[in-house]
């Protein structure tokens, strides 16, 4: 490959925040395969540099999602996770290596991603966010990607995004079952419209097991959906994509607002 030597700190936060400066030569090279796409002019790359994305959960979904969002040049990533890297994570949590065992996931992921893309700003939040913190971060970013591994967190994000009328992406998986979604409050429909308000049995992948390639697929979907949200042809409706393992395919189903929904029903009826 090339013998470009990267000065470790030659372009990070300052470049990411400077809206007017054009791409430098290294950035042109770095993003060249995207810039060759017919609908990906330099202007689009500069717009991505202005975007701020919050990723909640840096496990099997968050690692691939963050890798491709970072690689595409989204200018600022906030990565939140309170857990530490364990041996059983390594098969599917692709940003981690053996030397990361015991390290906080958000911090280990931020370090790995900064190596992958030195041109963006990456902040690690090494704690489990409480509701007030989540609410503040959601208000401060352009897009929220829920990669958490538990339903209570997803339901809090759902409620906060509904309150703040913010679009968000999410996914979940257990065993061979997997789902990804885009919720656009302006278009109607939310996670609670699916009728799963009651807490599901805890445990997740601890008890059910989890098919590693499926969380990878879902994480990449989230990254691609996030990039599409920053383009001009973003879907305007809310939807859920349902994985069917026997065909290894996803069915996209539009999420119709449930007028009886406790979270979005009242707003929809106004």
């Amino acid at each position, binding site marked *: 490959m090339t013998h470009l030597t990267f000065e470790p700190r030659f372009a990070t936060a300052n470049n990411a925040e400077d809206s007017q400066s054009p791409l430098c030569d290294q950035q042109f090279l770095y993003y060249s395969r995207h810039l060759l796409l017919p609908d990906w002019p330099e202007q689009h790359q500069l717009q991505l540099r202005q975007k701020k994305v919050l990723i909640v959960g840096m496990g099997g979904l968050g690692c691939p999602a963050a890798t491709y969002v970072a690689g595409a040049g989204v200018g600022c990533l906030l990565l939140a996770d309170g857990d530490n890297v364990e041996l059983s994570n390594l098969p599917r949590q692709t940003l981690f290596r053996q030397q990361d065992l015991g390290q906080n996931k958000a911090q280990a992921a931020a370090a790995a991603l900064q190596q992958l893309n030195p041109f963006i700003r990456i902040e690690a939040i090494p704690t489990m966010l409480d509701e007030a913190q989540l609410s503040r971060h959601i208000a401060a970013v352009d897009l929220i990607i829920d990669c958490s591994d538990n339903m209570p967190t997803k339901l809090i994000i759902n409620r906060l995004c509904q309150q703040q009328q913010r679009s968000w992406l999410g996914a979940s*998986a257990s065993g061979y079952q997997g789902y990804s979604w885009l919720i656009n409050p302006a278009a109607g429909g939310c996670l609670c419209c699916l*009728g799963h308000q009651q807490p599901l049995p805890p445990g997740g992948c601890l008890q059910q097991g989890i098919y590693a390639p499926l969380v990878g697929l879902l994480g990449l979907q989230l990254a691609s959906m996030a990039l599409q949200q920053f383009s001009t042809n973003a879907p305007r409706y809310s939807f859920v994509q349902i994985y*069917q393992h026997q065909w290894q395919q996803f069915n996209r189903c539009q999420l119709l607002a449930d007028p009886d929904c406790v979270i979005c029903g009242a707003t929809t009826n106004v």
Partner: protein
Amino acid sequence: MSEMIPIFVNGEPHQIAASTDLQQLKQKIAPGQQVAIAINTEIMPRRLWAGRTLQPQDQVLMFNLVAGG
């Protein structure tokens, strides 16, 4: 004998009585379970289940959002 029609539930072929609605199908396939139901390309709010009569070749997905990752 009522007429039977072919539909698909989670990809598997099923024969059901014509004029069966989503509510009745859910009772038959997933009694007592908390599920969401998509039919063809739309997720139906449960309020509408009883009024949605199944048609031949309808593709029904019954699922329960699981958390993990």
